[in-house]
């Protein structure tokens, strides 16, 4: 028997790429990456975005997700890139997508780039800027713990993953860490595996004896190229 192939013409190619910055705010910070991906693909359909698709019996829309914040962590700076089969006006696209997504997942920027030669967005993501609210923490204890942490050349912490416990260095990738009352501001290089805010909190507990009377809430404020101790706009190069 002959192998079946899909009927009809092959799918249209990508003629335009759009890079989007979106947020995970409020209660929607509990959205996992998989949850977001499903919601995003449905939003593309509701907004009738002219997506380009891969070929085959199960065509997939051309979407690249870039380094998502962990479940439970809020973010002002998540990124995704989509491939379109025709040119669109990006601000109209942004508004339509924003409207099609639940409140809290807000599309706040859209930049069009050429289909070829735009460079990889993922490679520009060198560091993240985090703000961690630590309600109920004693500011002096926080300062002390931070000092004790920062003089270490490295500080291993354990993280519980699906595959068991894993040890990683929570100190090395930390570029900057400052306390401001009960708020902790961090700039952390994106490494493999990535050090997350909760790893730094675990380190502050083990190196400086810091305790957390209430559940800390972390937010990503920015991610992009690292310039000294600042995180730059990753879409600056595309704005032309």
């Amino acid at each position, binding site marked *: *028997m002959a192998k*079946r192939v*899909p*009927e*009809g*013409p*092959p*799918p*249209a*190619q990508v*003629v335009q790429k759009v890079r989007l910055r979106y947020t995970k705010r409020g*209660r*929607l910070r*509990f*959205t*996992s990456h*998989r*949850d*977001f991906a*499903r*919601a995003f*693909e*449905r*939003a*593309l*359909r*509701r*907004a*009738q*975005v*002219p997506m380009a*698709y891969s*070929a085959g*019996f*199960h*065509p997939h829309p051309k979407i690249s997700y870039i380094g998502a914040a962990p*479940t*439970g962590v809020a973010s002002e700076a998540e990124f995704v890139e989509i491939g379109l*089969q*025709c*040119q*669109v*006006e990006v601000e*109209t*696209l942004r508004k*339509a997508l924003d409207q*099609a997504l*639940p*409140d*809290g997942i807000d599309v706040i920027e859209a930049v069009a780039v050429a289909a070829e030669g735009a460079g990889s967005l993922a490679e520009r993501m060198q560091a993240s800027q985090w703000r961690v609210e630590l309600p109920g923490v004693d500011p002096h204890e926080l300062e002390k713990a931070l000092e004790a942490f920062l003089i270490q050349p490295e500080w291993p912490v354990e993280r519980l993953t699906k595959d068991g416990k894993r040890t990683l260095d929570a100190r090395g990738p930390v570029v900057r860490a400052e306390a401001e009352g009960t708020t902790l501001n961090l700039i952390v290089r994106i490494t493999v595996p990535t050090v997350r805010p909760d790893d730094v909190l675990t380190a502050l507990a083990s190196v400086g004896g810091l305790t957390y009377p*209430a*559940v800390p809430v972390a937010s990503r404020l920015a991610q992009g190229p690292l310039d000294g101790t600042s995180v730059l706009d990753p879409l600056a190069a595309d704005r032309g």
Partner: protein
Amino acid sequence: MTAERLRTAYVAGRYGRLRRPRGLRTTGSAVALGSVTAPESLFPKLEALLPKVSKPIQYVGGELNARSKDWESVSVRWALMYPDAYEVGLPNQGTQILYEVLNEREDALAERTYAVWPDLEALMRENGFSQFTVDNHRPVGAFDVLGVSFSTELGYTNMLTAIDLAGFPLHAADRGADDPIVVAGGHAAFNPEPIADFVDAAVLGDGEQVVGTITDLIRDWKAEGQPDGRDGLLLRLAATGGVYVPRFYDVTYLPDGRIGAVTPNRAGVPARVQKHTVMNLDEWPYPKTPLVPLAETVHERMSVEIFRGCTRGCRFCQAGMITRPVRERSIQGIGEMVEAGLNATGFEEIGLLSLSSADHSEIAQITKQLADRYEADRVSLSLPSTRVDAFNIDLANELSRNGRRSGLTFAPEGGSERLRRVINKMVSKDDLIRTVATAYGNGWRQVKLYFMCGLPTETDEDVLEIASMAHDVIRAGRQASGSKDIRCTVSIGGFVPKPHTPFQWAAQASPEVVDERLRKLRAAINADRSLGRSIGMRYHDGEPSLVEGLLSRGDRRVGAVIEAVWREGGRFDGWSEHFSFERWTRLAAASLEPLGVDLAFFTIRERDADEVLPWDHLDSGLDKQWLWDDWQDALSEFEQDDCRWTPCFDCGVCSNMGTDIQIGPTGRSLLPLALASGQLRAPVVAQTRPPAPASDHSHG
């Protein structure tokens, strides 16, 4: 202040125990009585627990198309519960329909609540935290009604958890005027006797209209100042003849443990309670805007119920018996629902639901026209519940035009032709082999065959015929496809006799008998190794079926078992990792022994013609004599036709309920989109230039 607002204010005090009225409302005016102010959202407290539980997204709400109404703007508030995990409960059609129907009313609101997983339950108990709705995180105890939809009896323990977490008494008899009315619905509510201690009321049949009746009665009762308290309201509900209030009926028992009689114990309560039937589905196009969750759930598609009811007459099938008569949605009604629903959700799949979808009088036109309409949008179609015949292969081919042809499922249900006559599932072995050969010949790689084990009159030989059928399927499939790369999966479930079916009198097979037959079947399938290796066999052991049997055909005495199991930690009984057969049997023995009955009494015992069944006072429309005659026909292997194509055989439903069959064909087609749905499909994202001609994009 409007009259409506005044009426709401009149029932002040109800929520005072949950929260103090807001400062603004405590001044001396009439408004001050408005302690019907919305209970405070529990979300800030919940938020602190969420980082500690698995899949927190299921508890936060905020789904696309969720409704959020102002608490104070309405007089009747429903909490709707599907008593299973969010991932199973959210897609439930019944709950979504009632959620929309109630929220469309000016005077009512509905919010949803689901069973919380044990990890969150433990944290909630530690923190004194109430069962909450996911819409606005309000405490369930603050609502007027807790409506629970039971597709299966295995959700009973989860209802008890929710009531207990909500903080009001587990037993209906102990509740006060200000506690929610607990109303059970869904198929399992056709015998709510096992949960009679815990529910205030039960409703049989279609819920769309009766939720309105209940809302009206509650609104008026509240407006009048709750006359005669809780019983006053329940009496009004019972007096409609369509709401069953268990406490208004006394049950007596004979010395041998059987029921003597079930009789109303006060005036104004009918001897029998009728089921509800919605006629003309086109007038009820719900859900119009289905919920789209962020969390992953078991079904993620735009489901349209293409008809309700089924008169195929399969004798084991409770759904087919209690949902009669057949009422089709028209091809145009279906087309409009699909179009509006896809636009509202962005789903990639359309599910055409019913008890036997290929039986819609215009199913070929519906599938072809939907496939044509949505081909370019990459929306796929699925058609669960299909029959075994060649027509269905054509349908399946149409549905998979551009999709991979992976698997097709057929349900012969019984292993031998004799047994299929007993259960009234008219499929000959030759037809089945011809059908699956066609499927393999059309490029389908896998066929799944569904059977039941433990059916009335079943012998080892009946079950062993499944093996020879599966062998023949593989032989025919290899020949038709010219390939050895095909598979057949035999999937087997244990049969549970259900109320309101001809098998309601039957003895359920014991788990030992079922498990032994399945062991022999496995050996017979593998006896021919060259064929056997293309055949997979999936089955569940017989133990959970026995407990399901107890809960299905139990009476009020079974309530003690449910409560004992729940008190010992029984939760999520539909999940094998949570279900404990040992616990159920041990506590059934302990709870039932003092009452002079046991697990066997309710399950493996055959009933006589004259026995009063626990659900006889609940009227599904089916004539008990007709059911008994059909049971006798089953035992003499005599088949019954479908009343859609042969004369009425007097099952009793239409004459008792004043209903009639509503089927096509209408001879119409899906309307052109411009006419059907106006502007709906105008593109939202403006294109700055028209799409280039196809040749520019071609891969060549």
